[in-house]
């Protein structure tokens, strides 16, 4: 394996293979790292994306409603933010698993069904993990959306638009939301990355064969090639998410477009 060579030489060899898509083989089991990651990534991405998409929709609705209506709904959103901060996603997962899966047997407690095998089985197998990830994300994002909508509502141009007789609905949907969106998008992109981290522990709770559980096993075993492969997978995700967010900024705000 060439472990006697200087680490810089080992790294150089790893890098020259990695750019060609070869991340070596696992020291335990001898599987190809890239193949096993390709196999495991859909599991992790299913629960992360499956958690984030509903979380994004719900938190925008909740955040905007809290900012516009204030009152009781506002206090609920604020309280949820504290709960979401204080209840770690894996604790939420443990509670959901103990009640909904183990006691009531509504949903499977462990295992993953690929989407290609059975769409309904897939949905059932990712529901609880996705929900446990989503709750924390909703709490954090709704709070941010609320804050940025309130900031925009306070600005002078909103008063001007209202004074020109524009309907409240039009002010909100055409002008306020567009201006409040960039900070909310930033939070969502950060949430995506933190959900990828949260998925590591969630996968263990629900016995899902994803990248996270592979990373934990590799960490315990000291399986360096697999750990390196996981890091590359992460870097790719972070870069892709940031690129998407930058493109979305451009769509929302003509001022940041590059000619």
């Amino acid at each position, binding site marked *: 394996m060439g472990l006697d060579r200087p680490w810089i030489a080992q790294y150089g060899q790893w890098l020259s293979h990695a750019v060609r898509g070869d991340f070596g083989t696992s020291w335990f089991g001898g599987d190809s790292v890239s193949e096993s990651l390709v196999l495991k990534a859909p599991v992790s991405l299913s629960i992360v994306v499956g958690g984030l998409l509903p979380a994004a929709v719900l938190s925008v609705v909740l955040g905007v409603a809290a900012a516009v209506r204030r009152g009781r709904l506002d206090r609920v959103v604020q309280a949820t933010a504290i709960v979401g*901060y204080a209840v770690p996603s894996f604790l939420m997962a443990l509670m959901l698993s103990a009640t909904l899966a183990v006691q009531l047997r509504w949903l499977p407690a462990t295992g993953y069904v690929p989407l290609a095998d059975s769409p309904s089985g897939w949905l059932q197998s990712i529901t609880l993990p996705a929900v446990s990830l989503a709750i924390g994300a909703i709490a954090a994002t709704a709070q941010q959306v609320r804050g940025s909508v309130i900031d925009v509502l306070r600005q002078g141009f909103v008063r001007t638009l209202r004074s020109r007789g524009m309907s409240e609905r039009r002010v909100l949907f055409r002008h306020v939301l567009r201006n409040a969106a960039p900070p909310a998008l930033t939070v969502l992109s950060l949430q995506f990355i933190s959900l990828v981290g949260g998925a590591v522990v969630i996968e263990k709770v629900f016995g899902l064969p994803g990248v996270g559980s592979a990373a934990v096993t590799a960490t315990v075993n000291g399986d360096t090639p697999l750990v390196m492969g996981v890091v590359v997978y992460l870097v790719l995700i972070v870069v892709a998410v940031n690129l998407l967010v930058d493109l979305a900024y451009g769509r929302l705000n003509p001022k940041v477009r590059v000619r």
Partner: protein
Amino acid sequence: MTQSARRDTRGTLDPAPGTARRRGHPLSRLPHNRVAVVCLVLLALIVAASVFAPLLTSAGPTRSTLDDAFAPPGGGHLLGADSVGRDVLARLLYGGRVSLLGGFIAVAVALLIGVPAGLLAGYYRGRLDAVVSWVASLVMAAPAIMVLLVSIAAIGPDTNATMAMLGLILAPGVFRLVRASVTSMREELYVDAARVSGLGDARIVRRHILPVVQAPTIIQSAQMFGVAVVIQAGIEFLGLGSAGQASWGAMLNEAFANLYTKPSLLVAPGLTIVITVATLGLLANALRDALVASLGATPVPYDGDDTADRLATALPQGADAVLDLVGGDALDTVSTLMSPGCRVLTVADPDTAARFGARPLSRGNRAQPLGELARRVNDQIK
């Protein structure tokens, strides 16, 4: 700047001494905030419970009595026993030590790196700022737990070393916060004023910039502590903490292993984590409220015939400077020259002001050179 500064001070503003808003150091307002007091008491209890664990329970956190496996709460085990007969209460108390020490290490490392880096980068800008900011955004881009896994793979499972690593990951957040505060401070007129009046860099940072950075940093620290407790529990839950120690995360792992036979084992460690972290979060919120209320230098205008009486009651409330100024314009000018948190008592009548040690800044001070005005304000505050 503030409402009171814009209004005409002559006759219309009449704050009774009791209602004049006091704005001092954000922390000085905390005892008035009920949530903050409850949170601080709860935190003190949690700390005391784990520090004095041996006094509160005679049971050992790792001593197992197989006969007591899954013992129900009450009797010999106040909170019951786990699958190998270890006392849940003892594990909870001793586990608190691991969590609190871990949180402390993470926050300390984050502050030790983040605060100096943020002050230097924000104050001196330039190439240093560019490099450090780049490194910070690089570290922030990765999910913390994954970075921790890699570090555990490299240095082995040791809870305290992992928490120090977490501090390293949290440091960019502190750095950005401090840097942002310093950068915005630099643009303020009163920092220019301080420089014009001959204060050195070190003194400007200590007198004008550190006090402003301090409050948000304390808020961030409370929040980071909560994050550290959560992440540490996650690491221990995965079985990647130091071997053989009782911790809240390890207790959750034990509950998870017995999810089908005894799910109630989740309750004690779960509730403890939630209460600890929620307390830290609420404390951070209360601190933030106090901070928002204390932002901005606040002119406390006084006027009228009984000025002398009012001054006598107002001064102990802690005005940092007494100036004989009238009119909104003058107040605005002074406000921008003073760092946030300073209280200025303005008195319309020069004679009264003089009796209370105020030096005349002269009426219609707009005509005065900025440097001269700044020097006088700074003289007053010293």
